[in-house]
């Protein structure tokens, strides 16, 4: 079964190849540094953490065939995204995470990926399928880190969340300085499901995250994002919320901090289909640009086909408030610390939304390190 979808993906990738900046979805992100590089397959192993009680985990290669038939590759389309095709054609194995109907799991399910490239560039294509039964509750944490070599991490995660389920998803990306990271998170929500994503991006030379959610009736979908880039880093966040059915709400807040010559892209698509009356969608992208050489491209993309909906969007690009810095200085707080305090304050509301305590502590540490390492 896996071989069949692999073959389809392989063909698709052979047909279309890597996207170029002529593709609207990739206009501001050139992947030529990836397409030019000859990668060898990574020998990294599947993560094998201790999973909390109640979850059923298996390798995709050993997973029940009917479940794979029904779900694997059904949501993340090889047709619309070349990197999904690349992943599907090449993933070595993957994990099926099954949260049975009605099961409530309080401990986070943590998938930790560590990449390395000794000498030769390596590529890995982590693949995860999460099936959350009706009325289940779970928290999934994906972390991506790696060494200073040139490597590609190209994960695809599909989440199918049943009716009335409550799923929190966290992705912390702290890849190495020369890494390429292209990820796809595809979410399919049953009616009245509540899904929250927290996408936290700090590392990598070239990073692209796609998050696509398809909502059913009465769903609530929250997408939070935080990115901090410096030097020559490039980060691109593309999100798409598909309000396919009525009475669903989506809230999206992405915040970016740009330093050095870094570049960032935010593209937030909200699609409200004809049936999806009473949709309530709110999208916000805020950017703090700390250097004159940094560039942000931010674009809301709203397609509204229903007529009784509420959709709002807003994007801001700003600098640190000099009045605020002076106010803090005038109370004895040093200039650098004052600056960092304000940057931290900017990120505060995203940090505060993180309910996994160790992850929040780690995030605070990362922010402090990144801020203290910068002087511009």
């Amino acid at each position: 079964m896996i071989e069949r979808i692999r073959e389809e993906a392989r063909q698709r990738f052979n047909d279309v190849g890597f996207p170029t900046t002529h593709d609207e979805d990739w206009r501001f992100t050139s992947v030529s540094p990836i397409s030019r590089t000859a990668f060898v397959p990574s020998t990294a192993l599947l993560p094998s953490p201790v999973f909390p009680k109640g979850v059923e985990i298996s390798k995709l290669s050993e997973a029940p065939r009917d479940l794979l038939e029904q779900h694997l590759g059904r949501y993340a389309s090889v047709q619309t995204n070349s990197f999904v095709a690349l992943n599907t054609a090449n993933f070595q194995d993957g994990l099926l995470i099954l949260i049975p109907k009605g099961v409530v799991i309080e401990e986070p399910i943590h998938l930790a990926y560590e990449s390395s490239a000794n000498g030769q560039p390596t590529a890995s294509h982590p693949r995860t399928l999460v099936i959350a039964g009706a009325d289940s509750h779970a928290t999934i944490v994906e972390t991506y880190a790696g060494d200073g070599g040139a490597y590609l991490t190209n994960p695809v995660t599909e989440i199918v969340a049943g009716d009335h389920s409550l799923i929190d998803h966290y992705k912390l990306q702290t890849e190495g300085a020369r890494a390429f990271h292209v990820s796809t998170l595809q979410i399919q929500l049953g009616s009245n499901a509540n899904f929250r994503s927290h996408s936290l991006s700090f590392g990598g030379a070239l990073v692209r995250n796609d998050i696509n959610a398809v909502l059913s009736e009465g769903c609530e979908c929250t997408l939070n994002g935080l990115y901090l880039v410096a030097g020559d880093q490039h980060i691109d966040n593309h999100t798409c919320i598909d309000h396919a059915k009525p009475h669903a709400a989506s809230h999206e807040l992405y915040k970016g901090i740009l330093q050095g010559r870094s570049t960032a892209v935010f593209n937030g698509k909200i699609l409200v289909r004809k049936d999806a009356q009473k949709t309530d969608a709110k999208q916000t992208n805020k950017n703090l640009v700390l250097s004159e050489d940094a560039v942000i491209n931010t674009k809301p993309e709203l397609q509204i086909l229903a007529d009784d909906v509420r959709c709002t969007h807003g994007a801001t690009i700003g600098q640190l408030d000099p009045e605020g810095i002076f106010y803090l200085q005038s109370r004895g707080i040093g200039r650098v610390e004052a600056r960092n305090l304000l940057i931290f304050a900017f990120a505060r509301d995203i940090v505060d939304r993180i309910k996994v305590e160790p992850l929040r502590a780690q995030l605070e540490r990362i922010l402090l390190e990144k801020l203290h390492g910068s002087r511009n």
Partner: protein
Amino acid sequence: MSLLEIKNLHANVAGREILKGIDLSINAGEVHAIMGPNGSGKSTLAQVLSGRDLYQVTGGQVVFDGKDLLEMAPEDRAREGIFMAFQYPVEIPGVSNLYFLKAALNAVRKHQNLPDLDAMDFLGLVKEKMALMEMDQSLLNRAVNTGFSGGEKKRNEIFQMAVLEPKLAILDETDSGLDIDALKVVANGVNALRSPERAMIVVTHYQRLLNYIVPDFVHVLAEGRIVKSGGKELALELEESGYVGIEGEAA
């Protein structure tokens, strides 16, 4: 030697000279009121003393506690004991009042070679000073000045001053925008901080505040110069005759 010695101070903003030679000497324990019409330079003087970089000092000197004040960064002035209560306190979303105050107090203490205050002592200090300013403790967990009313902001300034215990407090039009009840609370807070070790500069347009914070000296500023100095009765005189008479006298 006096705590603050200002000699022939000149300052510009955006290329325009605002302060045109200020001389002022302030001793510990004294409260000096600086009055004057709009545009006379009184707020500029307060800002220059606190180190606001919008203003360029073009001449003169300021010695504070034996040190060259104009050489110091704003944070160093604060650590040396200068505190300015802002006319327009700045909102800082995302930073709690409590965190801010702790960072400020510890920065000042570090400069004095004192260890950080432990959490219990800090909270005790903060609560005591909040009671003095009749402030609700819920303000501690709110972001600095964010969503505060005008009165709450001004109280918060004096509250910070009470916690930081400066050697020289500069009140920049702290009375502006306050109703009489809030004015009394602010004045009480200020009066509680009067001490033989501490000096204050009270910048105000109106005499009203000086009914509650009674100054030892009053200086009238006009067009960037001190045109008249006197005791507290000078403020009353101004109340009677207005600034026009004073300026005429100087000219």
